[in-house]
């Protein structure tokens, strides 16, 4: 069942420092499951505790656990191929700056990353409406598939 906002999230948020709360805004009260509002965006800065390019817990995709001054945050990055294609390597211990927004997912909340930055390298992962940027690989110059040729 889609959950908009849970007591679990509120309880966790209550432990955040005032400074962190200023950055990490809660999901919209009327938001649908997975809703994203750019006006609710905040910035996380922290250290990667764990990075999984293919999470086995829905919503699947590249995910990481970030240790911030305010606590541990579950971050959904989206398309791992987009990271790989842009030579954006993430490892435990990396310090990241992530712009995004919280969304309710199941009985908890998830931080949907829109822009991730490591050092001087930044990568856009979502549109301003929160949709994951699709990755399409470059086409080979010599296309040989049986799509058919020109008449």
């Amino acid at each position, binding site marked *: 069942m889609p959950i908009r906002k849970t007591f679990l999230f509120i309880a966790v948020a209550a432990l955040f420092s005032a400074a962190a709360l200023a950055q990490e805004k809660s999901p919209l009260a009327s938001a649908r499951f997975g809703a994203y509002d750019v006006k609710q965006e905040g910035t996380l800065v922290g250290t990667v505790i764990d990075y999984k390019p293919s999470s086995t817990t829905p919503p699947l995709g590249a995910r990481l656990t970030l240790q911030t001054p305010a606590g541990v945050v579950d971050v959904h990055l989206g*398309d791992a191929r987009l990271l790989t294609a842009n030579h954006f390597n993430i490892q435990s211990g990396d310090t990241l700056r992530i712009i995004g927004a919280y969304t309710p997912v199941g009985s908890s909340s998830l931080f949907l990353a829109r822009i991730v930055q490591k050092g001087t390298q930044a990568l856009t992962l979502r549109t301003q409406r929160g949709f994951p940027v*699709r990755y399409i690989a470059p086409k080979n110059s010599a*296309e040989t598939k049986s799509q058919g*040729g020109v008449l």
Partner: protein
Amino acid sequence: MKRLLWLSTLAFSVALAACNSGGGSSITVPPPTGGFTLGSLNGTYAFSMSGMDPSTGAYFVRTGSFVADGAGNISSGLEDAVDLGSAVNEVTLSGKYTVLANGRGTIVLTDSSGDTLDWTMDLQSSSQGLLVETDGNFASSGSFNLQNVNDFLLTSIAGNYVFDFSGINLGPSGAAVTNISIIGDIAANGGSITGGVIDTNDFNNGPSGATILTPGSYQLDPTYGTTYGRGTATFAGRTFAFYIVDATHLKFIEEDATGTEGASGDALVQTGAIPATTAAFTGNFVYLVGGASTLGADASVARFTVSGPGTIGSISYDENNAGTPAHISQGSNISNATCAIDAANAGSGRGTFTFTDSTGGTFSYVFYLYSPNSGVIQDVSTNIVADGTLLGQSGSPFTLAGLAGNYVYNWNGVNNSSLNEEDFIGQFTLASGSSNNISGVLDGTVVGASAGNLYPNIGTQGTLTINSTDSTTNNTLTIVAGSPLSATYNSVAYVVDASTVLVLDTDKSSVLAGVVTRQSQ
């Protein structure tokens, strides 16, 4: 009416380790029975298939026409194909086909460049069927319909046509690649598109709302128009090729000269008394939409009743949002459940409906009716880009006995591990009302699967369970696929009528959805 657009809204670099696990390791394909023969495929057929290029993840679509001679030969054919980002290809076709007694068969085509296309088909009847590509070059599936060659005239295309096109827009350099959904209504007078209304939704811009079209044009292909019913059209700022099924039904493929946008879909002429006021829109409805959410691939299926002017009730809703299934049943949890016909565009068939679930949030849709109780639908909820089919529900109470028979189906969607395309067509038999067991066969392609992309002739078993005679609570369809696919697909099943069931896979490993349709000979 249309296949669902999924494709990889997300993607992984890892290979798919397994599909929905726990499938049957050894399931024998039932001996083909029935009355289909080579002669069942006889005439000129329009086809459309869409999916992805497995080597790049790019959107792929083909639409065309082939001529079957009733004796195993495809004497000629023509197709338009778009592998988004590459030039549009138009090729002629010829080849062979086979048909088993159960309507399952193969079509092997050689195009004018010498390449071979392999498809597997399931005949729903001698006038329509389902297709899945089985050569591994593209992951695609779709349908075909017998064409009425007497309607291959410009003047045949006259009236108001409701359409649903979905696809991908690559955007300008540096912009995000986005799913795109376009639904609407166009007025054709036998040579020109005199106007219309459309709704567009994509990742970047969100729902457009009702947008009035400026006049457009269409013409038959001077070379292939009278042979295959091919034509070209320009409207909504886009260029299309189309194939005439008959005067009531056209198959479109967008052919953007810049290679930036690809989309496809069907257009159906409006018939009957299209509701022009909210009070005139009543009945029971079932809908299925597919697309993407902010979390990944997303699909939902639901039913509702318009119980009074502008009031909807008896809602049952299921969603699979990137592997997280959800179910909503109407109770005190539902509020603001309303619908309205667009009075400002009366006659277009355009309407809207919305409801709010106390925990699930607000669900909002726009639709266009091509008949008094059926149409196309677009999900315009804040975090969704999706579209699909809205159908009037009739014939309840639904029972196993009433549903017994032979069915064909087309599912497609996204594997949540590989985030790649999955396409299946298949058929099953529900032998009688005394047992909910089903058995059958499926053919499919699963891009990135460790056992290879192609899964031909897979035996299946399962159950169709009717818990609710009007689908206000969940009915289920479970299909267990034998090796090497070895997967179990657990779906909710919304019965539309005695011949049609809309299904949504509720497993976390895939977001799959499709239509199950009764087979007739």
